[in-house]
């Protein structure tokens, strides 16, 4: 812990900040102009590094290393433009969440395309010619390539600044960032503007990726890793603010560097491993910034969007007909283990389906009626799963007790995270929930002594009378049906109406005495508890759990289920969870490229049914009914 290593770590931080800034700047630009939170931005980064690898390998002998490397981001830029023209253009008018779903489908497709082209192995590129050596800084060696990166960050910031302030195109971009509708009213060619912004954003991400080639191997999990970090940077800096992204990237990279430098420190008898904190540090920074400055460091409050289409129809009590359908369905589900005696796998899959239904229904509860788009719902699922496992293994509780107490753990977690989250709204709320989920994941992932770290916990078996899968299935069925029925009751009760009222108009809610935040907070805890129950059921059905249950991809699965089914109908999450889990299972068993298939199906559905499967079914049904 001397001064020299401190300086070297700071420089390391600066180098790391540069590529992070490139990706975040592109993301911020795209969000600013198109208002699309582009999940696929990390994929552009990944494609950038893979392309650079191939181009350098093939052409560096003929045209030299640098030109070959720099062709990669250009190709990525063209790819971005193509994506914008073929896909994005069709969904600008769709609800915000559908845009997210579409970009996430793109992530899946691109990931499998990369897997198909480059294979699953990590690929390490050659060192950059001219930057292979290291310089001595205060007696420590520091790679010259990192020095180059340190210079590149501010250089790109300067160029972007010139582009945005000194050109007509830049003026349009800044104007559109402030008021998109006004710009279109002034007769600017929006299609062209959006395509070019998308292309530039993709180019920057590709550049960030290509520049990483000499530093780290290209791998298939780069896309989600970098998009997480880039989201944090953009939110901390303020959505749409390029200088904000720069400041945030520096801040986060430097805090990480300082954590590494601090090493393991003993404070008042407690040993704190700061290097381990690096996994959560960015999310801690984001949570803190969002608490103090909800619009980010250099951002400004988003203007409310004026065209508010897609207002959902009022709730109607279930008619006798649909009531009978539900009873029939439940009867079928009860009989399922007998019907499927020849193939026990059906019972096992059905447990998974039921767990997914509860998970999706609980997420829908806060996303749809309460209008809070949680991106970290896996946190409560995971808290339930780990709560059950830990209560069972360490507290010595019987399995039944652990199963019933686990949701309480999730409720407590949702109480803490929700108390902060309901203070924000829109994209910022989504990002804060994501941050909390990531922090939970990182804690579980690293706490080897308590949670089993990355290996997770094993030996989480159900009680003796439930070891038969059929019995466990029936228990799951009872609990899931009860919980879903309760959620539905709540939506028809004053509390559910208060949630929808608070979503429809905060002003009016306030003016008739509704305590909006308290309602939302309470909704958060109810949803958390139900997700926790799903998690606990999951843990005992598998017998073991790993940090996977808390991973961001689990949250995204939930989002996809809810959106696939349709957010505006109560049956939506059920239909979505069933079709997603079944699809996932079927596709994964039949092809190596299940992600791409899934992504393609999602894209297809989004373009075809922007109101979700259940929503589309209802529309068709009612249209025929009207005739």
């Amino acid at each position, binding site marked *: 812990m001397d001064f020299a290593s401190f300086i070297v770590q700071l420089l390391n931080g600066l180098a790391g900040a540069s590529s992070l800034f490139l990706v975040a700047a592109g993301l911020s630009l795209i969000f600013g102009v198109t208002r699309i939170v582009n999940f696929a931005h990390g994929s552009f980064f990944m494609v950038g590094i893979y392309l650079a690898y191939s181009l350098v390998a093939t052409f560096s002998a003929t045209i030299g290393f640098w030109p070959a490397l720099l062709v990669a981001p250009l190709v990525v830029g063209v790819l971005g433009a193509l994506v914008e023209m073929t896909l994005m253009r069709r969904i600008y008018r769709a609800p915000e969440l559908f845009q997210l779903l579409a970009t996430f489908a793109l992530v899946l497709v691109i990931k499998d395309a990369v897997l198909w082209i480059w294979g699953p192995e990590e690929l390490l590129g050659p060192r950059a010619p001219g930057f292979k050596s290291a310089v001595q800084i205060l007696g420590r060696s520091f790679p010259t390539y990192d020095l180059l990166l340190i210079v590149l960050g501010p250089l790109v910031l300067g160029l972007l600044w010139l582009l945005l302030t000194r050109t007509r195109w830049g003026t349009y971009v800044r104007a559109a960032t402030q008021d998109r509708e006004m710009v279109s009213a002034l007769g600017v060619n929006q299609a062209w503007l959006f395509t070019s912004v998308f292309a530039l954003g993709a180019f920057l991400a590709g550049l960030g990726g290509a520049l990483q080639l000499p530093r780290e191997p290209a791998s298939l999990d780069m896309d989600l890793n970098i998009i997480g970090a880039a989201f944090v940077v953009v939110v901390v800096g303020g959505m749409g603010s390029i200088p904000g992204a720069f400041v945030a990237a520096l801040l986060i990279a430097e805090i990480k560097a300082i954590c590494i430098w601090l090493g393991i420190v003993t404070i008042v008898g407690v040993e704190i491993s700061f290097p381990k904190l690096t996994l959560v540090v960015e999310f801690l920074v984001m949570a803190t910034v969002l608490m103090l400055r909800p619009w980010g460091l250099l951002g400004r409050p988003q203007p409310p969007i004026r065209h508010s289409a897609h*207002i959902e129809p009022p709730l109607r009590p279930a008619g006798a007909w649909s009531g009978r359908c539900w009873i029939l369905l439940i009867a079928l589900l009860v009989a399922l283990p007998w019907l499927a005696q020849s193939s026990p796998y059906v019972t096992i899959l059905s447990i998974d389906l039921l767990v997914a239904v509860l998970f999706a229904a609980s997420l829908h509860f806060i996303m749809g009626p309460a209008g809070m788009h949680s991106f970290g719902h896996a946190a409560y699922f995971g808290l339930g799963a780990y709560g059950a496992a830990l209560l069972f293994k360490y507290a010595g509780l019987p399995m039944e007790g652990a199963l019933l107490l686990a949701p309480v753990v999730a409720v407590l977690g949702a109480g803490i995270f929700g108390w902060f989250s309901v203070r924000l709204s829109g994209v910022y709320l989504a990002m804060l929930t994501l941050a909390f989920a990531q922090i939970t994941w990182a804690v579980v992932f690293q706490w080897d002594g308590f949670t089993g770290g990355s290996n997770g916990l094993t030996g989480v078996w159900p009680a003796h009378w439930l070891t038969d899968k059929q019995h466990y299935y029936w228990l799951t069925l009872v609990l899931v049906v009860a919980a879903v029925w309760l959620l539905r009751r709540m939506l028809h*009760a004053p509390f559910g*109406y*208060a949630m929808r*009222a608070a979503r429809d*108009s905060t002003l*009016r809610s*306030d003016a008739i005495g509704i305590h909006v935040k308290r309602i939302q907070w*309470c909704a958060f805890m109810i949803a958390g508890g139900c997700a926790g129950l799903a998690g606990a059921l999951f843990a005992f059905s598998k017998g073991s759990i790993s940090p996977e249950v808390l991973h961001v991809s689990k949250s995204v699965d939930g989002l996809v289920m809810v959106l696939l089914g349709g957010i505006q109908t109560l049956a939506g999450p059920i239909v979505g969870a069933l079709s997603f889990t079944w699809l996932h299972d079927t596709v994964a068993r039949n092809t190596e490229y299940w992600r791409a298939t899934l992504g393609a199906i999602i894209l297809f559905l989004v373009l075809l049914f922007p109101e979700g499967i259940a929503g589309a079914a209802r529309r068709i049904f009612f249209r025929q009914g009207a005739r």
Partner: protein
Amino acid sequence: MSLLTVRDLGKSFGGVAAVDGVSFSIRPGELLALIGPNGAGKTTTFNMINGQLRADRGSVRLSERELLGLAPRDIWRMGVGRTFQIAETFASLTALENVQMALLSHQRRLFSFLKPVRTFSKLRAQELLEQVGMAEQAERACSALAYGDVKRVELAMALANEPTLLLMDEPTAGMAPQERHALMALTKRLVLEQNIAVLFTEHSMDVVFAFADRVIVLARGRLIAQGSPAEVRRDPLVQEVYFGTGATFTAQAGETHA
């Protein structure tokens, strides 16, 4: 005995006094119009009274209780209903459910989790909708109603907790002339029946002169005149503010109020 007493209310935005020492009061059953040219401080005054904006100084008392520093929802609980310049209702709820929400909140039953909403206070809600002439459209979604009808639903919601004071921010904004008069006539009738005091801001003078019992005039954050509509109409200072240049107004205001 006045119901609402506003004393020396003040608010500045970055050194500019938007509202500067405004005082007035309202009696039960009285319709008081708050008028003034753009930027006079009407909305600022209004939002300080309803709790949306924090005041720098002064006091706002409802009967004997201080309202400043309370959240809008607490002010509503003390019997203050309000309508918005751009009507705020719950778009995904029916007209009836909108009113039911106000009633449920009034009865403190929002945290009921199991009984369906349709079993709560339906009759009372229907009654309120009938009062504003919206009974036929009770089952329609608010998002599907004509704007004038949305305003009526909003009025019914504002009346749900049997308020003693009604705050209406430009109640007739965005409405056709005929609708405007119908809405204000309705308001006046309900207010007289239930002895409610109304404070409303308004841009269209025909509405003010037809329905206000008393008028107070704001200009550049100060109260420059008050009285009956006829008195205010004759006031030379008011005429100058509305029709003149306004440039000499500060000096004159100093003279009149000295």
